């Protein structure tokens, strides 16, 4: 694999420092959180030991990662059938997808799965570059309404009907 972008020889993946910092914070939080636990009477071990170990090792791993990064260690990002690692990460698309999913979780109880599910499908397809919006909306509606009925009739699980309560 050749790197497509022109980078000077010793490449440092700065984002890995961020990951190391995040892991260290998680490790510290795990330990701090565990300090607040009470060890019961006659309980020789208690609920603290395991989190202590995990938190401590996490901090150690964070340090090791930071050291490895400064020595020029770069991650091997995951490849896949549909993944083209030669192009730059497309943050706009990811942002749109996350936005659509956030809207879904905000409105699902109000509008009901039958509506938000359809919008979720069409919205995600649109974010990913589909230009057949009408078709996606219809496909999404068919999928969400039929999945609502599938859960209701076959599995006996009522998903939220939302504003369509009584219509579905």
């Amino acid at each position, binding site marked *: 694999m050749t790197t497509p972008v022109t980078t000077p020889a010793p490449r440092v993946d700065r984002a890995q420092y961020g*990951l190391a910092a995040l*892991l260290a914070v*998680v490790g510290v939080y*795990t330990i701090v*959180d565990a300090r607040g*636990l*009470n*060890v*019961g009477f006659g*309980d020789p*071990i*208690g*609920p603290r030991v*395991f*989190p202590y170990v*995990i938190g401590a*090792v*996490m901090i150690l*791993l964070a340090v*090791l*990662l930071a050291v*490895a990064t400064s020595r020029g260690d770069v*991650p*091997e*990002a*995951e490849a*896949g*059938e*549909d*993944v*083209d690692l030669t192009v730059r990460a*497309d943050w706009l698309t*990811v942002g749109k*997808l*996350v936005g659509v*999913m*956030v809207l*879904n*979780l905000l409105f*699902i109880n109000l509008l009901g*799965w039958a509506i938000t*599910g359809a919008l*979720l*499908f069409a*919205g*995600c*397809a*649109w*974010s*990913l*570059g*589909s230009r057949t919006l009408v078709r996606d909306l219809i496909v*999404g509606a068919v999928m*969400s309404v039929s999945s609502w009925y*599938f*859960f209701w009739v076959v*599995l*006996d*699980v009522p998903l*939220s009907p939302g504003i369509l309560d009584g219509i579905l």
Partner: protein
Amino acid sequence: MDTLNLLLDGFSNALTPQNLLYACIGVLLGTFVGVLPGIGPAMTVALLLPITYGLDATQSFIMFAGILYGGMYGGSTTSILLNTPGESSSVMTAIEGNKMAKAGRGAQALATAAIGSFIAGTIGTLLVAFFTPAIAEQAVKIGAASYFAIMLLSVVLVTSVLGESKLRGFIGLFIGLTIGLVGLDLSTGQPRLTAGMLELADGIDIVVVAVGVFAIGEALWTAAHLRRRPIEVIPVGQPFMRRDDWRRSWGPWLRGTAIGFPFGAVPAGGAETPTFLSYVLERRLQKPGKDQEQFGEGAIEGVAGPEAANNASAAGMFVPLLALGLPVTATAAVIIAAMRTYGIQPGPTLMADQPELVWTLLASLLIGNTLLLVINLPLAPLWARLLQIPRPQLYAGILFFASLGAYSVNQDPYDLALLLVFGGVGFAIRRFGIPVLPLILGVILGPLMEQKMREALDLSNGDISGLFNEPLAVFVYVLIVLVVVAPYVLGFIRSRRSAP
């Protein structure tokens, strides 16, 4: 003989018309999702988990058996037709399979893959049925200290043997262990790592973690790097095999099964190594000259062997899963998650506590395997057409079903938020090259390891010797040290030798 009777009982439980219907639905859904590019067996099972919620345990396992085998067969279909293996275990299949397909022998490649998978799956499942009870019988006697040591061994193996970077493997493992900590401490009832959120007190649903990391993470990662170029389409006819194909296939099927099963049964064995070994073996076994030259040009042996090895190792993973409660692959981890939603805790006592369930599961695996062959051979051309689904709609569909699955657990938007968070985690670990398997193992085994550790130390009244007072435990710790240290020692010796 006892085993056979128990298995027959399992069949009588599984073989009702209604259950057969669920098995059929499972096979069809599993293949449907498995054929879609970019979706491996673990993600297939995770995505389809929620649709089994309304069923009772037996029925859902029957459906699972179908989904599992369908998902695996779907994966090899994609790799043969497109030369784009969905996961590392299909790489070897893709090499010869795609060459065969390009030479107009795609139908034969699909047929030898399907029949080989069937044979390997059947033999493998029978081996599971004969081995598991014996192992479980021994495993019940294992004390807490040894059980802890064995779990430690398997996470260390998975973390340090697989993958390029051990550091990243351990980072994945400890992220998983941290996620596993969230929730109430089982023995004292105090909340840990919940940040005061009531919803987190119950712990994080493993289904949400699996779907988030596998499905959402994968979809977001792919969205950020979407490939925009179609691939050459290869037409598929009805799969059939000529007499010559049969003659060349049966040897590789059996040898592949023999290689794949033991690898599946041990932690960190996986399907990658045995498929590779099977490929190399079949290549070696060819007569030098014309036959050997066929390898690389579409030799049917190169599809038959690795495919059988792949499926046999998938069957092998049920030995540690059912006998010890140890998941050794991502798919096994998702299956354990599924069992937990039914309140079933896989472990050494499972065989003794719920024999009916285990034997029904084994019988359903055999049924699912057979149905796969019956249903999928005629349907191959239809599955191939699924590859025309445009990527935007495909990944939109994945996000749709992942959200549906997470939401249907409790009908709480909170789970959707959690799903998105773990989608973010899944995205990040792909970005930083952190392997998924140690993370999922950490989530599943973490709480169990803590429980066993505390049991062992309670007995010794807090003295650290409680972890070492069983011979088996000591033996396993020695193994762990060997596994971790051996590569360095070997490397050291080698460098000394090569030095002048």
